């Protein structure tokens, strides 16, 4: 808008830069968790995730092969091997044989030990120990080294959290619990709300204005108030804690927004179509099913996305109405909260679990963003 008058503002660059800065600032937290979910526990605890994209210097200690593996070459006893046997490859920066001097030697340097043997560690990680006498003892020589390892990512965390049968903290069961909660809790309120919204938008009857005002009022009633009365009610009628209870609760809590959104949308539909249909002898039920519902698809989609995101991401309603002491029906959000308590520092597990739970909403978000924006614009009370 600044350049309407015909001159390019000097602010343009500042605008681009500050938008870029803000976008990076907003993406950075999510990136951190995303990158971490592809790293091993060792990698996560040895360096910040932002270094994972570049080669890292790591201080590593290993034991060389045990003396039982020595071979005789030209009268010398020799032990050979590579420090990278079990790990990724990398470059040795410097190394040592004592924990007090882990960077005493350069790669390739031949060092004499106290017992007269020599040891050398090459840049590519191979080592060679030579001794005139036989190596003794049962344990190998300790080697400390600083290596530059290239970035490395793994899918093991996801495999462990999703498909490992032995992992009692696996997310697959909770994933299906969440899905089981979400789908009926999204579908049922839409239908109930659509009929009510039609009545509120296109039927004349006394008390309509008051009902609409009630819906607007109920939009903001905190669901915290409903927890105890409804839990008591569910226990009284024998539902107790379980899927049925959580479906009903989500239906009730989602209805005000659903009715409000759909009514606002339906009111805007052209009056002619509906009146023509009435003149042609269509009943209200037919008008609703054959004209209003198809035309209201954008609003239905908007609400469906809202309700889906909200039920998928919900913690409180699930904790109160669904999860009983057996823990068989735990949803992903609750399981993550529990893991934060029991596995506080194990970021590879936490990051993976969080990303498994976030993947579906993010996919829905990017696929259906248009409807989400439209719903937000219609749903904020003007």
């Amino acid at each position, binding site marked *: 808008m600044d350049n309407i008058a015909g001159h390019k503002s000097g602010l343009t660059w500042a605008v681009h830069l500050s938008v870029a800065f803000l976008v990076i600032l907003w993406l950075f937290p999510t990136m951190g968790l995303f990158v971490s979910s592809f790293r091993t526990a060792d990698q996560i605890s040895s360096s910040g995730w932002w270094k994972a994209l570049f080669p890292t210097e790591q201080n590593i200690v290993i034991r060389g092969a045990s003396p039982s593996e020595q071979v005789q070459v030209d009268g010398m006893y020799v032990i050979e091997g590579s420090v990278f046997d079990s790990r990724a490859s990398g470059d040795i920066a410097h190394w040592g044989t004592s924990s007090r001097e882990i960077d005493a030697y350069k790669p390739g340097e031949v060092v004499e030990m106290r017992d007269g043997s020599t040891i050398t560690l090459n840049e590519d990680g191979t080592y060679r120990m030579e001794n005139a006498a036989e190596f003794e003892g049962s344990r190998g020589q300790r080697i400390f080294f600083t290596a530059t390892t290239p970035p490395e990512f793994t899918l093991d965390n996801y495999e462990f959290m999703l498909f490992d049968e032995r992992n009692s903290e696996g997310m697959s069961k909770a994933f299906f619990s969440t899905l089981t909660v979400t789908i009926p809790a999204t579908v049922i309120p839409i239908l109930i709300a659509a009929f009510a919204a039609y009545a509120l938008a296109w039927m004349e009857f006394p008390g309509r204005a008051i009902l609409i005002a009630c819906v607007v009022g109920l939009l903001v*009633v905190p669901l915290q108030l409903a927890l*105890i009365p409804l839990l008591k009610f569910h226990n009284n009628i024998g539902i107790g804690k379980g899927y049925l209870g959580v479906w009903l609760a989500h239906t009730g809590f989602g*209805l005000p927004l659903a009715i409000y959104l759909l009514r606002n949308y339906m009111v805007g539909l052209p009056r002619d179509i509906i009146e023509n249909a009435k003149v042609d002898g269509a009943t209200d039920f037919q008008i609703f099913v054959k004209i209003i519902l198809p035309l209201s698809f954008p609003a239905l989609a908007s609400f469906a996305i809202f309700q889906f995101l909200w039920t998928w991401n919900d913690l409180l309603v699930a904790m*109160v109405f669904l999860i009983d002491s057996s823990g068989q029906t735990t949803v992903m959000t609750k399981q993550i*909260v529990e893991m934060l308590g029991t596995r506080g520092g194990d970021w590879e597990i936490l990051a993976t*679990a969080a990303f498994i739970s*976030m993947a579906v909403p993010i996919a829905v*978000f990017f696929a259906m*963003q248009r409807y989400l924006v439209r719903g937000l614009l219609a749903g904020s009370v003007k």
Partner: protein
Amino acid sequence: MHPALQGLITIIIGVGGCVGYFYFSNFLLDKFLLPARALSAEQTATRRQMGTIFLFGIPALLVAALYVTAVGVGSIASVGGIFWLLVAAGVIYGLLRLKNFVFASGPTTAGRNISHANMIRPWLFLAPAIFALGLYLTYPVFETLRLSLITRNGNVGFGNYSYMFGEQKFWEAMRNNMLWLIVVPAMSTVFGLLVAQLTDRIAWGNIAKMMIFMPMAISMVGASVIWKLIYEARPIDVEQIGILNAIWVAMGGEPQQWLQLPVWNNFFLMAVLIWIQTGFAMVILSAALRGIPEETVEAAIVDGANPFQIFFKIKVPQIMPTIVVVWTTITLTVLKVFDIVFTMTNGQFGTQVLANYMYDKLFRANDWGTGSAAAMIIMLLVTPILVWNVRNARKEMR
């Protein structure tokens, strides 16, 4: 039964039940009860008989049976018993009135039948919604109010409230909630407005907006995990893996347990919600900025206003109503904030908020009275916004 199967059956029963209800209730109304044609005295008489049985007799018996089993004849003298007796009597009286409204005692004309059917139909459409809203949102408000007035030892009065007001944790929650109420809506709106304005005219603005909007899709629990990694602290001699401490240490500070720093930790929790809510503010405000008439801006440019003057003196005043809407909507979210605090600190280290305090009371201390009292405080804080919203909605409808 496998829950997935149970879910499928519930969808089928739920959807089928809804469709069936709407279809058959309309069918019954149009084809049998009040058909769009004249009815003779004989026809209305048989209908009236059937109606008396099905619309009045059987439901009235059901209500009576429900009263006897659920409330009990013995408690008829108590306050609750009388209340429910009045409710039951009201329902039966209503059924009687409804029956007389639907079924005429003499011959009817088509016009009478159609107009009566049209007066009943809206309520058929609305019935499930009204029932669900009444049971799941309206009734709990009054029930919570009732529970909050009954103390543990059965006294009726404000005992729970005075106990709660004597608790230091409650005042901590109130103070923190007020902090949240000031900081989060303000910061989210400011950031949202900033992003909306900056991205308004640049080519990749939509992609930038999408990225900033994305946290909306992430659960508060997921966001808490994300931000816990940012605040992660490790001993001084080990490399920091939380970015905040990494920067702090690089600048020469000691690693901090950010979430345990008194008072400041509240702001670190608020950052999570600001991060989530900015996208929302941005989307709404961006649409509002687009809606500003070009002429006003052009006139300002012609008059020699600089970009900052245009923004603060021309644009912001015009979108003020939208800013207020965004502000109040975020305020509502903030009042109910629970997941973030529950997940990240669980109200320890001086970060308690009302919703988490209430959860503590209800489900950890099993003190339903005090918990309900805390819920009523949240309701009280929401009420001004409720009234304001309702008034605006009514104004708009006229």
